[in-house]
């Protein structure tokens, strides 16, 4: 059963249609790539999936229920982990603080929060020294890792990532994609938005956004 389904989704900015009649299904344990040319509506679709925007027509189902019935803040803080294209980290906080803040927002309690955050950051390849640095003192790749760790901190079933490898060197790209791959193996539903064919190649399924979407 699909954990996330799009049912005849349409979205337009004013009178300009961006997405028309999209119907996709996303399952746990798989890695998806939404691809398309610039302006095709990739990021818009990601916003719809994360509840940052609402479709003008159609419905999005999470575990069979319409996300309209779910509190959008709850959806973003507990069920879906979002990795933004420009990472969107709190720049005055350290990497560790960014992750623990996300846990706080998700309502995760317990004394081991810090340990769990450090563990997550270690999983994405950051050592303790890097964890305690402010994010502006980290490289682009390291910031991307922090954004991934933050997205994972609330133990979501779905990971949404917008151009996760966009500004990274090849080696780092490969490492980041390995992280996503391992997450999918752990049963997460990973949805990547990218115009990179290499990323699309590494995914289980790819949805290409044109005027009318096509399944590869």
């Amino acid at each position, binding site marked *: 059963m699909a954990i996330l389904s799009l049912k005849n989704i349409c979205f337009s900015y004013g009178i300009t249609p961006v997405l028309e009649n999209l119907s996709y299904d996303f399952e746990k344990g798989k890695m998806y790539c939404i691809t398309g040319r610039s302006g095709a509506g990739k*990021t818009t679709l990601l*916003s719809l999936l*994360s509840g*940052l*925007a609402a479709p003008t027509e159609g419905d999005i189902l999470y575990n069979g229920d319409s996300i309209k019935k779910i509190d959008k*803040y*709850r*959806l*973003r*803080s*507990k069920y879906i982990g*979002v990795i*933004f*294209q*420009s990472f*969107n*980290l*709190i720049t*005055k*906080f350290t990497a560790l*603080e960014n992750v623990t*803040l*996300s846990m*706080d*927002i*998700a*309502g995760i309690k317990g004394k081991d929060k810090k340990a769990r955050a450090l563990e997550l950051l270690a999983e994405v390849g950051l050592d303790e020294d890097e964890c305690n640095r402010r994010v502006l003192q980290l490289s682009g790749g390291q910031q991307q890792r922090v954004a991934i760790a*933050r997205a994972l901190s*609330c133990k979501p079933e779905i990971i949404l990532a917008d151009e996760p490898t966009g500004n990274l060197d090849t080696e780092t790209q490969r490492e980041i994609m390995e992280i996503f791959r391992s997450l999918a193996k752990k049963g997460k539903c990973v949805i990547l938005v990218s115009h990179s064919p290499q990323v699309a190649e590494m995914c289980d399924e790819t949805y290409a956004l044109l005027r009318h979407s096509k399944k590869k």
Partner: protein
Amino acid sequence: MILYIIKNAFRCIGRSRGRNILIGIIVLAIALSACLGLSIRQAAENAKKETLEGMSVTATISFDRQSMMGNMLNEGENDEPPSFDRDAFSQMMGEASGLTLEEYKAYAEAPSVSGFYYTMSASLNGSDAFLPVTSDTPEEGSAADAPNGFSQGFGGKGGGRGQMMMGAQSDFSVEGVSSEEAMTAFMQGTASITRGENFDPLSDELNCIISEELATFNGLSVGDTVVLTNPNNEEELFTLAVVGIYNDTSANSDSFSMMGATSTDPANKIYMAYPALNGIIEVTAQNAATLTDENTGREYTTDIKSTLSATYSFKDLDSYYSFEEEVRELGLDDSYTVSSSDLESFEARMVPLNTLSQMAGYFLIVILIIGAIILIVLNIFNVRERKYEIGVLTAMGMKKGKVAAQFLTEIFAVTLAAVLLGAIIGGTVSVPVTNALLEGQVAQQTNRSDRIEESFGRGPGSGSITAPEGNAIPDDTGRERPQGGFKNLGAAAVDYITEIDSAMNITVVLQMLGIALLLTLISGAASMLFVMRYDPLKILANRD
């Protein structure tokens, strides 16, 4: 849940020190100014409270002549000026004999009254062996009669004395008191018996106490007798036994003797029991004869005119305020007025502090308005600057309300810290600053009063006490203050509050906390409005 918002707020404060220090300095300046303003207001309140607590409020009932004169003013017809009905006024004044002792006693039954006493004042002449103290130039042939080298002045042998009906003043002011409480100078400690003892206020025996000056002037001591005469009938003699001699430190005879009225000189004041003086008055009334003045042709009686005045005391100011309503219900008509010299004195003393308090109030309002505007602007800039952060937090799933709460916590924490620091500094400097400002106010008030005195041809601080005979009662400073329409404008007569001991107390601290809360809410409301308006998608899209 709330804990992480607070934790996050403090973390943000720490990470944006520069901005928060700037806000803190501005709030500190506002808090310091507000603290001074509040402290001054509190000092005025404290001084008022302390003065009222230590003050026994007394009131008198007197005939409202001014109001009656207003009633006698006829409206002019056809653009004619209003005219005053002098005959009707004279007739009415003649009929207005004042309240009787029974009426005074009836009003003393009012529930608000805690104490009551009355005095009878009369003017009597001395005799050849008992002369009033005076510093006037001795008349020919009379100085030799003065004992101990004092000048005799008024009267002398024969008929120089006793011309009351012609407007001349008599020798002595005799006051008959109903109780020792009525001897206010003694009660307030400005006068004390130095030799002998006091008379029994309830006795009708002709015992009296006289001033040290009068005793020295006449070579009298305790146990001696003095002879007083009816100013209108020198044949009527009253022999009084001197049972005590007193010293009145508040008495200053210079201004009184200058007026040429020996009876108004405090040294010539004789105290005795009310029943005893009343007995003298009754005797003169029984023996009264009707005579005609040779010069004016007016008829007059030879009995001694006396003035009866009653004083009511109250446990507090509220009782005094309710007293007037009560006596009106008991039948006191509108031609009489209830007044309190204590209250007038108190209000006069409070003038500089009240003025300062009022100015501090206006200053406080201006400071808070300007402060609130500055903080609103600063917080709007702050929120706009942190727009991205708001977008990220809401995109992470933090509700806008919680983001706003975090911002509000930050503002409150910075404001509270600055306000507390301002309160500490303000508390330290409030007393010297208040006293310095108060000193300026007192000087201003004194200069103003002195200018008025000079305008009337009197010296600065002269006091200009011009009370009618037997109609002056001491205020709480022991000075005698005029009653019945005469006001002392002299600054020297008013004991202004010139210094305060403490201005800061828990009330000011609570008020400061209230200000911190108010400033937070006002400035925070603007921030919250912006936070609630922001759409995270737009913020992040613009960022991207």
